[in-house]
């Protein structure tokens, strides 16, 4: 069989490759933990889109990024950088907090 016969398959694979490559770069949102609180505490992300939250802890004290609304929890040790994917989400407000210091809260607004 010549290469011709494989052409549609190769084309399909290339297309699949590019589309997944395009989809593999979700928007990033940076959140810093400073003095056990979130900076910024108010973040906005687009609706119906998978988003990568990059959480960096500037303190030496460990924190836990937790959200009941987002069904997410991840420990952020001192001076560590962690990634958490959320969504795709419907529009609305989603609360999150530091489970090791529950007075520190934040809101993720989906527009």
């Amino acid at each position, binding site marked *: 069989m010549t290469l011709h016969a494989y052409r549609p398959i190769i084309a399909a694979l290339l297309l699949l490759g590019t589309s997944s490559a395009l989809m593999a770069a979700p928007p990033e949102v940076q959140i810093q933990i400073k003095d*056990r609180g979130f900076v910024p505490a108010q973040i906005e992300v687009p609706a119906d889109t998978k988003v990568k939250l990059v959480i960096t802890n500037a303190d030496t004290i*460990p924190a836990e990024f937790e959200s009941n*609304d*987002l*069904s997410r929890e*991840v420990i952020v040790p001192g001076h560590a950088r962690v990634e958490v994917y959320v969504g795709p989400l419907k529009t609305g407000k989603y609360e999150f907090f530091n489970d*090791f210091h529950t007075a520190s809260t934040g809101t993720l607004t989906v527009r």
Partner: protein
Amino acid sequence: MLGTAIIVFREILEAALIVSIVAAATRGLAGRTRLLTLGVVAGIAGALLVAGFAAQIATLAGGGGQSLFNAAVLLAAAVLISWHVLWMSRHGREMAQTLMQVSSAVGRAEKPPSALMVVVAIAVLREGSEIVLFIYGMAAGGVGVAALGSGGILGLAAGIAVGLALYFGLLRIPPGKLFAATNWILVLLAAGMVSHAGRYLVQADWLPTLGTQIWDSSWLATNGSTLGRVLSALVGYDARPSGIQLVLFMATLILITGAGWWLSRRAETAADPCRPAADTLS
């Protein structure tokens, strides 16, 4: 102090529920106490180790290391539980008989399946490492040793009390039905763990969501509430689950019960016809 007690209680609770179920599921087995103690001790050692290396684990895989670690540990526990449940579907009948005639049967009590020891260790490790990090954070944040210590002990005591209540509640089940009941609880536990692992894998972007927030049962119990945490530990409850969590839960349930049914049927055909074989999954 109360703040510390509540956090410690919530973490201990999840481990205590699992330890209680394992304790009930291994009732009457020779060497059970040793098995449970070893599990808890290994879990505490593991918790200290995991807490000590938390920063290294967290930064693995480009920042998704902790989610992947949690998923791996939960999947390992689910596999071990499944292994035990399937083992029980072949030996459950004899074990129930030993329980009912304890005095005459001490000599031929089954060897305890050590798979469940590892499950206990994993449960203690997972929740324990969070407690260690939390306490460390509180201490570093200037909370005094007295407040931390008393809060920690109060939380620990309350968590263990709930665990004991569940254990003695389970023991009220008639001996002939105890293992059938604990086996079903273990199947749900394993399905919940696999589903929970799925959530961690979605969080690390290793699995597709298959739809986010399929339903919202926050009105019933939020993930952070005590009821939510109990249900999460027992059946992998999530107030806003994604599709993959539901798929994994159902798939695990079907897989274990299917395999258990097949094994007990095979044992039935192989066994003495006068003595029907174990049927712990029905």
